[in-house]
């Protein structure tokens, strides 16, 4: 059931929330009311949803919170948007984000930073990014659920900071067609909501093969996953040694131990487990993702759409430099880093090496899970684990000022925030960040083997 509030109420609250938290980049102009019976009988009839502004929509602009795509309107809907529309949702608006999904603070947007609504009376704190507006729209109860995208933690981190559920499904389960690419070997559409039953319902609607997306998980492998599925009442749970828990906030520890005790009392088994390659995750991630980003963002030259410099297409012999200088500073940093990683001199030492280490990481994950990885054909491990527990963030949301200061000292400071979320992105694993305490920005990721999204959702449902 949709949350108990009318669309009208949402719209009434929207403008004041928007002015305080800067959640949306655009809002649907006319409220939509369910009229006929056919509409009401649809799977998601009556649900209000927000869409991250890097997922294309016909009815509203798609800007990626970038000057480069200011006022850009897509002539087609992304597959996930199309599926939601068919299921009867009402799209409230497009949500703010770090430009092109690059950032973990939610501050790198031409529309300004998203402010965390968990702190209505204090100094402004960050929402976390890049799906910052998505998380805020859910946290404020403006929508029943939100669509975000997660490349290295962009759904899970803001979900954690907004104390809502944030689910990044297995790579390839939800279509990326119409999702503006940041780093498409990692980009995944994610779902944010306060209710696990809503989240699961939405997942079922979107979890479909799409021939338009060459990385969409094909029907054959989906069938194989279905065959391997096992319904369990108790699970074998792993805690990964290599994730350093010591620096975590005190508040986290308290809730975490309470949670673990609850799990044991429910009859679940908890094991320590080692995944040594986890330590390579950030270097791998910051080699591959900026390279892909630099490549994907090459198309923004202003000729066919988007912003174009009013005077020049070429400067100092460099084509499109005047137009492309309008990318934000974080995007520019990553384009430069990406191009550096792809330069012929360093390609072998950087890119190829990172790709190899990424395969090693996947192998290590394959060894510890019970569920077989249908992509790698790794052997089933009957004694393996069902899920892993991994903290979502090493920090609590800082103030805008703190975050900006940290980042200005070194851009790498904000990259470190991704340490707990990036390994699952690199391996394409399903990972759901759930709040450990109500209205508190501490989250725990429930991680499953590739394709075993079902176990992750079952687990969260059973402990909710």
């Amino acid at each position, binding site marked *: 059931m949709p949350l108990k509030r009318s669309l009208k109420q949402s719209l009434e609250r929207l403008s004041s929330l928007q002015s305080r938290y800067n959640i949306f980049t655009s809002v649907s102009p006319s409220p939509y009311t369910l009229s006929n019976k056919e509409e009401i009988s649809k799977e998601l009839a009556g649900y209000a949803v927000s869409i991250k502004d890097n997922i294309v929509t016909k009815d509203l602009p*798609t800007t990626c919170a970038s000057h480069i795509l200011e006022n850009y309107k897509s002539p087609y809907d992304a597959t996930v948007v199309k599926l939601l529309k068919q299921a009867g949702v009402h799209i409230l608006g497009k949500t703010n984000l770090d430009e092109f999904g690059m950032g973990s603070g939610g501050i790198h947007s031409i529309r300004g930073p998203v402010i965390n609504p968990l702190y209505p009376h204090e100094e402004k704190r960050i929402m976390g990014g890049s799906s910052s507006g998505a998380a805020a729209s859910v946290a404020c109860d403006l929508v029943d659920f939100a669509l975000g995208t997660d490349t290295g933690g962009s759904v899970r981190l803001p979900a954690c900071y907004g104390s809502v559920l944030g689910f990044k499904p297995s790579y390839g389960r939800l279509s990326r067609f119409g999702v503006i690419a940041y780093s498409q070997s990692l980009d995944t559409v994610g779902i944010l909501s306060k209710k696990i039953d809503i989240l699961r319902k939405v997942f079922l609607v979107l979890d479909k093969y799409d021939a338009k997306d060459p990385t969409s998980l094909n029907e054959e492998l989906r069938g194989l996953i279905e065959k391997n599925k096992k319904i369990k009442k108790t699970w074998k749970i792993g805690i990964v040694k290599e994730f350093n828990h010591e620096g975590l906030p005190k508040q986290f520890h308290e809730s975490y131990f309470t949670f673990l005790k609850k799990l044991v009392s429910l009859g679940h088994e908890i094991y320590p487990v080692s995944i040594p390659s986890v330590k390579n995750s950030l270097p791998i991630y910051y080699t591959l993702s900026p390279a892909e980003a630099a*490549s994907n963002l090459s198309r923004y030259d202003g000729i*066919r759409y988007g912003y174009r410099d009013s005077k020049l297409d*070429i400067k100092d012999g460099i*084509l499109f430099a005047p137009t492309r200088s309008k990318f934000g500073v974080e995007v520019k940093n990553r384009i430069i880093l990406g191009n550096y990683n792809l330069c*012929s001199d360093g390609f072998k030492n950087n890119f190829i090496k990172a790709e190899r280490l990424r395969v090693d990481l996947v192998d290590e994950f394959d060894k510890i899970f019970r569920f077989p990885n249908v992509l790698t054909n790794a052997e089933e491990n009957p004694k393996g684990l069902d899920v892993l527990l991994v903290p979502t963030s090493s920090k609590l949301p800082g103030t805008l000022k703190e975050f900006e200061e940290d980042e200005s000292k070194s851009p790498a400071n904000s990259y470190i925030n991704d340490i707990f979320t990036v390994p699952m992105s690199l391996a394409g694993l399903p990972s759901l960040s759930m709040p450990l305490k109500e209205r508190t920005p501490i989250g725990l990721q429930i991680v499953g083997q590739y394709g075993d999204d079902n176990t992750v959702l079952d687990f969260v449902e059973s402990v909710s």
Partner: protein
Amino acid sequence: MLRVARCYSLARTKVAHNYSTIFRPEYALKCGLEIHTQLSTRNKLFSQSTNSSTPLVDVPNRHTSFYDIALPGTQPVLNLEAILFAMKLSLALNSQVNSVSQFDRKHYFYGDQPQGYQVTQHYRPFARGGKINLSKELDGIDESSKDISIVQLQIEQDTGKSHYTDADKDVITLVDLNRSNVPLIELVTNPDFNDIKQVRAFIKKYQNLVRHLHISSGDLETGAMRVDVNLSINGFARVELKNLPNTSSIINAIKYEYQRQVELISRGETSSLMEPETRGWTGSSTVKLRSKETTIDYRYMPDPELPYINLAPDVMSRVKESMPQLPDDMMRMLMKKPYQLSLKDAKILTYNSNQNDMYNHKVLRSYYLETFQEFFKLVGEQGSAKLPTNWIIHEFLGDLNKLHVPLIKAQEILPPIVFAEFLKLLHAETISPTSGKLLLFHILETFQRSNCRDRSIPDFPKLIREFELHAIDQVDSQELVSLCSDIIAQHTDDTFIRNLTSGKKRTSLKFLIGQGMRRSQGRIKASEFEKKFKEILDIQW
């Protein structure tokens, strides 16, 4: 068209230059080719847009999908037809197809490059190795046989097209993306060419091959096939020649560049030949486009979303089974017994010349081969192979061209078995060649007058009776004498006779025989006339 303000084309200076083309053995030419071939698939490489190979008649930017213009959020979906075409070409060239190949992105900015990168195959190309054999016999090169080995074949996207115009003093570039994302195969040869004849023969042969396989129009003029040349002399650095729109530019650019470098080497001014450079062809000279220092780094990256091309083990063998006989094998078959065609005739039956509307080589070849077979069934080993050859390839085709009747239509009234009957009449000397020509032309002309609608099979005996075309075996001696005398009286004078009988101008006899053949409409054999003229004029030689 999309307007890209401000021209960014390379400035070109035209330098007129006279050159003579003397290839000198002390300056050894070493040359390789890089050929881009547009595949004539129904759709583009990664989208459903129509792959239109007739750019001249099309509205700019008509054949463009959201993907082709690189709209945000679009994704490539591989067209498997392009893979099939690449397999066919690889098999024909004896190249080793990699069981796994991948797509990579090559990055550079340009107005007609909408993604900011081109999808190509850099790290693991589709196929490696292979060769094309050139021979004196089939290709007219100087050496009896020469292999040009192939480095690799890769599948890639074509770019759009830029048109540079001057409008109101403001130089602008127009961009047409119809060509964007059209599938290409890039073929790179080793630098095995050391003579210009080999280059010309290779291009012709490769062009014929892709046409034969129906994977490309192979036309240089439309840009469906584009050739770059790399060349070095006496081991100096490699120079790449670009912008060569047709065979004559390719040949002339090589000649010019050879001459230019020879002059530099002979003067000892070789400093500019130490580093590789890229040069363009202006139509009269080569000009430097860029050197190593200005070459950009393409930052190749494996495409993160296109899947590897993983070929199932049995795919290659199945494509192999579907391959047509290759042109060289076909040529050799046609030039051997029993057909014994000349090189020229064998070519007519083998190659798609794209020049004749009345027939295509495939229909003609099967017509020829079937008629040949039927003819020998009728006449046994006594038959001459020359009869079907001359009558089909020369006489019959000539008539079709004259009358504008397509072969495919003419086959309806003259199927191979009927044409074989006709050849049997000539073989048995039931009718003379001259009568045969008249008869064949008459049949086709009647057919043409009916607008190719009267499809009744010709009744040869009836037509021969009707037009009295029977060859006359028993010539009425009186009639022959009077005919010959009549011709002598009409066409000769004393000098003519003197020169003829003395043997000073023996060809005059041929003239008289020709007149006789004409008057008798070929029904009396030439040998009968020769005997009678010699008798009347008392020719002793």
